[in-house]
């Protein structure tokens, strides 16, 4: 995940997109990273863990995390 940098703005449609759409945009922008880099990645919107089909509004912030280790 560090290869994407700490913060990134991506262009999306006015009515937003899904988290998986954002993942695809990330891979388009960083093709050298490869699809495996997103395997097991979790995401959160407004401090809630969300699934890939979660709808993200334009301007909303999404956090991507590597797989959790657990406690």
């Amino acid at each position: 995940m560090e290869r994407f940098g700490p913060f990134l703005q991506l262009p999306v449609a006015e009515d937003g997109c899904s988290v998986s759409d954002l993942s695809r945009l990330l891979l388009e922008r960083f093709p050298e990273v490869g699809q495996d880099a997103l395997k097991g990645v979790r995401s959160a919107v407004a401090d809630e863990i969300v699934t890939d089909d979660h709808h993200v509004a334009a301007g909303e912030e999404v956090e991507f995390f590597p797989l959790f280790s657990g406690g």
Partner: protein
Amino acid sequence: MSVVARLTDGEIRPEILLEEFIAGASGAGAVVSFCGLARGTDHAGARVDRLRLDHHPRLTIRSLERIAVEGAARFGISHCLVVHRHGLIRPGETIVFVATASPHRRAAFDAADYLMDRLKTEAVFWKKEESEASGRWIEPTDADRAGRLRWGD
């Protein structure tokens, strides 16, 4: 019902926490506690000098609170305490302390067991075993996942 979850970068003193917990568990007939300690070796037996637990400033404590609340409700226990460490942890130090109290022992045992299975697989941490020579990020093991699955929720 009293449910408390805490996240700390300081030393966890289980003996003090347990004493306080018992003192506050009014009406309980059973108290169960569990301490998870940092090991000095990894799964292959190689030396580990320290464990590094990275956390999220908001999601980590929320994950601990959610697990504690849901575990306490599931088993109907009267008191529940979860204290989890983050930061750099040396072998032998306590990573996690869980205590449960209930009128009868079975619920307290089951709740503590359940809480630990969820903490091991769902708590929002990124854990790295570090030595002078190397470092390795770790994931829940197959045994951790199997432990979580046996509760069927």
